[in-house]
Structure formats: structure tokens, C-alpha cells
């Protein structure tokens, strides 16, 4: 079922946790909300699931206005940030709780629970207590429990945040697979961009109660719509300044390191405060190459990570610029203090308005 979040605001006293947000999520999509802690992600999810009524606007699921419909009567199932499994029940009873509520006979419940146990690959664990399971297994019990009620929409509130890295990566793939298999709409909350980028069809990046951008993962990464998205998602080298001139799709800013040229997606005009962003992997050493922007600098530090290395270079009076180099056997030796030129193409850089973003 489609979800339509129509100009929704949520206020707690004087504090506005979510500001006039509109968003459509088509059925069957894996949709993620990505944002820093406290930006209002959980609040949106609780409004969709019915635990909070928006102070303004409407939420429609499958075209039906959900106002006044309690969480127990919505076609949604929520997986809580802390899972909220029932510790006194066995695994299968947890999974079958939603069916028990619907008055389904015990035999049938057990059968359906076993099906779901298969789906989330927990064979043979049905009669254990949830407290006897590992973190990843509990995770899957929570998913199975939510899927048992056959929701049209599954809402997941940072369900992987408590797991270790390895398990988290494994569960990402598993979640994605479960979503594909069931065709249920997933709305996924995370503050981990890797999670959002690997799993989602589309991502909404939020900041302070406002959605900054809704797009596919590639778009979010390659074409951040705002300075916040550019800084929050992935690494980015920021250069602060004012727009000096514009020509067609490009703009030039007067950074501390001299004029720098990048794409002017937001159509800024001369005099606007702006930040030019360039990704570390788009920066190169300028060895006589033709590059739109070249910065004379010296090597500060080199972090070798194996498959790649991060070069921290410093221009005249500037902070570190990170250059990400793939270890392809031809990157050569560099010494700290060595003077080099780094540069990037104007097409690889984005000039975005500096708004509400504190200078770091």
C-alpha cells in the first residue's frame, strides 16, 4: 500500500520535532530515513505506525486517512529500536503473538510461526526463550514477529544499531532479501549511511525535523541537494567562500586557497555564501594534468588502509584536504612535508549554499 505523508508536522510543546514534511512512498519500496540522532526519524515512524498523531497534516496509507486509527488497527508493523521482544515467551510464541491476538488456533499459529522461522533462517530455535538467542537471532525474531501479521508496511527503527559490524553487514543483506521475497513496503530508519546506501531504493536525508533530500542512494551521494546532505553522507572536502562569478552550469568561489570552480546546481548568484564540496576520491595529484582546480599544498599525513590510502594534504593556511587514492600499484611514494599539487575537475565539485550549516 502506498504511503502518503502530506504536509505533516509534529510538535512537542514548543518544540517542533518534524516540520511540514511531505513524502510519497510507493508500495513495495525499501525506503530509508537517514539522519543524525534527534532529527525526528523515530517521530515520523511513530506517526506512521499510529503511536503519535501529527499536530498538522495527514498520513494516508493505501489512500485512507489514518487520523484516529490506533496502532492496533493500522496495516503497519513496527520493529522497535530495542526490538521489544517479549522475554517471557518462547521464540515461536513471540512470532505468533499477532496471530494469537487475531484468534487463530494454536496449531495454525505454530504452523505459521514455523514458516516465518524458516523465512528468517531460525530453524530449530522456535522453542527457545528469546533471552537465549544471540543479538542477530533476536533481530530476526523481531522481523518474523512483525511479518506474522502480514503488514502492508514494515517500519524498522534502527534495528541493527545494537549489532556488531559483521553481523550488521550480514543482516543488511538478509533484510534486503526478506523485503524482496515478501514484497512488503519497508520503511527503514538509520543514522548509518552505509546501511541506507546499501539497502534502500530511496533515501530521505533528514536534519532537524526537515527532509533535506529524497533520492536514490547514488543521487544522494553524487548529487547532494544541500550542504547538509553533502557533509552528512560520505566524506567530502568543504571549501568555504562566496560566489565570485557564474558561467552556465558552473560557479567560482573565492576560497582561502584562491578561486575554485564547481557545478552550480542550486543556481547561486554572485555574492552568495557558498561551500564547494569535492569528494576525496575525486581529488587527484596534479602531475601536469589539465585540471580545472589545482591547489599547491604539502603532504601532512598518509594513512595507508591497504586497498587504498588517504592523503591528508594542506594548502596555504587551510585545513586538511583528504585525497583518496586507490592502491593500484602506481601511486608512488610520498613523504610528509613533500610539496605537491592536488586538484579536481569542476564537474567533480559541487557549489552549494552555506545555510544553517555551522562552519566546522
Amino acid at each position, binding site marked *: 500500500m502506498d504511503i502518503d505523508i502530506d504536509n505533516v508536522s509534529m510538535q512537542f510543546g514548543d518544540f517542533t520535532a518534524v516540520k511540514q514534511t511531505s513524502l510519497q512512498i510507493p508500495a513495495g519500496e525499501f525506503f530509508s530515513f537517514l539522519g543524525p540522532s534527534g532529527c525526528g526519524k523515530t517521530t515520523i515512524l511513530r506517526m506512521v*505506525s*499510529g*503511536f503519535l498523531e501529527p499536530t498538522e497534516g495527514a498520513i494516508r496509507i493505501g489512500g485512507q486517512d489514518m487520523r484516529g486509527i*490506533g*496502532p*492496533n*488497527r493500522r496495516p*503497519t*508493523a*513496527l520493529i*522497535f*529500536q*530495542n526490538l*521489544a*521482544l*517479549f522475554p*517471557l*515467551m518462547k521464540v515461536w510464541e513471540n512470532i505468533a*503473538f*499477532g496471530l*494469537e*491476538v*487475531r484468534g487463530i488456533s494454536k496449531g495454525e499459529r505454530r504452523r505459521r510461526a514455523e514458516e516465518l522461522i524458516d523465512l528468517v533462517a531460525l530453524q530449530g530455535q522456535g522453542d527457545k526463550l528469546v533471552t537465549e538467542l544471540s543479538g542477530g537471532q533476536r533481530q530476526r525474531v523481531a522481523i518474523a*514477529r*512483525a511479518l*506474522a*501479521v502480514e503488514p502492508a508496511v514494515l517500519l524498522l527503527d534502527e534495528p541493527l544499531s545494537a549489532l556488531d559490524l559483521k553481523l550488521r553487514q550480514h543482516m543488511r543483506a538478509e533484510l534486503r532479501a526478506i523485503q524482496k521475497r515478501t514484497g512488503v513496503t519497508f520503511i527503514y530508519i538509520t543514522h548509518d549511511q552505509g546501511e541506507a546506501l546499501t539497502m534502500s531504493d530511496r533515501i530521505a536525508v533528514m536534519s532537524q525535523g526537515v527532509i533535506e533530500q529524497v533520492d536514490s542512494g547514488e543521487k544522494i551521494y553524487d548529487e547532494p541537494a544541500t550542504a547538509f546532505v553533502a557533509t552528512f553522507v560520505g566524506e567530502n572536502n568543504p571549501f568555504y567562500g562566496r560566489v565570485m562569478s557564474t558561467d552556465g552550469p558552473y560557479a567560482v568561489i573565492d576560497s582561502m586557497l584562491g578561486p575554485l570552480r564547481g557545478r552550480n546546481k542550486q543556481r547561486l548568484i554572485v555574492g552568495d555564501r557558498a561551500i564547494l564540496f569535492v569528494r576525496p576520491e575525486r581529488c587527484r595529484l596534479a602531475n601536469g594534468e589539465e585540471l580545472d582546480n589545482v591547489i599547491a599544498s604539502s603532504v601532512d599525513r598518509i594513512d595507508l588502509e591497504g586497498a587504498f590510502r588517504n592523503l591528508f594534504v594542506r594548502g596555504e593556511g587551510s585545513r586538511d584536504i583528504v585525497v583518496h587514492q586507490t592502491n593500484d600499484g602506481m601511486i608512488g611514494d610520498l613523504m610528509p612535508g613533500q610539496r605537491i599539487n592536488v586538484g579536481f575537475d569542476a564537474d567533480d565539485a559541487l557549489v552549494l549554499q552555506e545555510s544553517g550549516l555551522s562552519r566546522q
Partner: protein
Amino acid sequence: MGALKDFARRYGMIMTSYMVVACGVWMVGMIIMPQLLMVDYSLQHLDRSEESRIDQQIEQQYIELQRAQSGLRGLNRDLEAAAEADRPAIETQIGEREREIEQIEGLITELENTFVEAEPVYSFANYEYLFTNSLHRAIFLKTIWASALVTFIALLMCYPIAFYLAKVAPGERAALLMLALIIPYWINEILRTFAWLMILSYNGIFNQAFTGLGVIEEPIDFLNQNIGVVIGMTYTYILFMVFPIYNTIDTLDKNQLEAARDLGSPWWRIHWRIVIPHAKPGIAVGCIMTFMLAAGSYAVPQILGGTSSLWFTQIIYNWFFEGGDWNVGSAYAFLLLAICVIFILTMMRVFKVGLDDISR
């Protein structure tokens, strides 16, 4: 032993031995010895047959004495009325009587001074006495079921209060309510009970108000029908039920309630499947405390019980301080204790909680 070593390591030998000795003295002197003494008392049956035989003899002699004295009075009258010639004969008779009286009086003092030590015999006679005395037996049984009733009513009343305090009321109101619950307990139990006496007595506030309003035609005799005792006790011990339940419900993760609701559960099933199972140890502790306090209460039935509604504790009191038979009193007290222990074990069985759950 490991725990002891641990303790010794942390606090040193002197402190540890002091603790061990203090605990030992406390256990032996304050708990084990008095209990053993009571059990010992209760098993000693005083055989009073010799004593009562002597009592009978004394009574007999008093009757003889009266008979002799009235004979003497008759002779004295005869003497006054008699002619001079008859007097010596009568005087000898009088002398005989006086000797007889002296003899009887001597015998009486002798009998009264024979002090028979009632020889205690070890037997279960003191316990059997409860089962042969139908009045005491009835009061014993009534005390048990009335205490159970008090416990049950208190549970019905306190569970919703505890749940409201722990999970529904916003912080500030919960604190206020808690205060409202506790403040009455700053007043002495006896005064609190007297307040109920004023409300419930035959000419009390309740009866006056409701006969005045025409709701009831005749005043209700609460006090002589045990109702007063049950009401008074429920009120007196309500806190002992509220707090254990409140404490356990307070530890329940609110997300579990929301998860159950999100899965479609109506409120009663949330309580039945989630809250009550979680609160079981608290409910068990609350029931145990309330039952023990009710069964062992003396002041409340003394004040709120009418003349025809005795509590078992009052019978025990009478044995000790009015009947003067500490042995039967001990046996009765021990039986009451035994019933309480049985109640505790039953509760633990019913609620499937262990000692560790309770002492948590």
C-alpha cells in the same frame, strides 16, 4: 564460602568475623531460639486433673464447713432457750462442733496449701484442642478465608493503581498520587482504623448518610458481620500490595506494551499476556505480605470487629493473657504460622516464582 572469602578480602578479617558473629547471634538469639521455645511450649500439655481434684475436695470441705457452722448456730440458739438442767449436755455438743469446725478449717488450709505443680506432658493435645473446640475451629477457618478475601480484594484494587502509577501517569502526577497513597500511612494504624470505625459503626457516617438519603432502609451492621474487618484491613494493607506490584511493572519496558498494541492486541490481552506475567513476582510478594499481615493482625479486628466477629489472633491473645495457658496459645500461634507458610508456598507455586524472584 566463596562469598565469605570475597567479603573477607574486601573488608578484612576483623570486620568479617564481627559480621559472622553478629549474624549468628541475630539468627540464633532473635529468630531460632524464640521459635524453638514457642514450639516447645506448644508441645507441652499441662495435665490439670490433680489440681482440679484438689479443688473439688476443697469445695467439698467448704460445704462441710458450712453445714457444721449452721449446726453450731442452731446449738447456740438451743442453749439460750434451754432450761438450766439441759445446758451442760448442749455445751458438750457445742464443744464437739467447734472441734469439728477447727478440724475442717485445718483441712482446708492444708488442702489450699498443697500446691500441685501441673506436670507438663509432651503431646499434641494443645493442637488437638483447636480441632475439638468447634468455636475456635470456626474462627480459625474464618480468619484464613477472610484474610484470603482481603488479599484478593487488595489485589483487584491495587493492580490497576500500580499499573497506572508505573506506566500511564505522567511523572508529576504519578509522584503526587504516590504521595496521596503514602500520607495516610504516616498516621498510626490504630488511629486510621478508628477513622473507619467512625465511618462504619452502626450510627456511623456511612449508615447515617445512606439512611438519610434513603438508599438503605436499615443501618447496616458492618462490624458484626466481618465486613468492617475486611474493609479496614484492605485499606490498612493496600500499600503492601501496591508497592511490590508497582516495582515490578515499573521495570517493564514500555516498548513491549506498544509492540503488543502494534501487533493488534486489545488492552486486556496486553495485561493478560505481557504485564501480568511480568508482574508475577510483585503480585506474589504483595499477596504474601497482605495475607500475612491480615492473618496476623490484632488491632484492626479488635477495633472494627464486633462482639460476634472474633479474629484468630484475638483467641491467641486470650490464651496468653486471659486464659493463662501459654502452651495452648503457642500451639495456636504456631498453627497460624504454619498456615501462612503454606500460603506462601502455594502462592509461589501458583505464580511459578522462586525465592530468588521474590527477594529481587
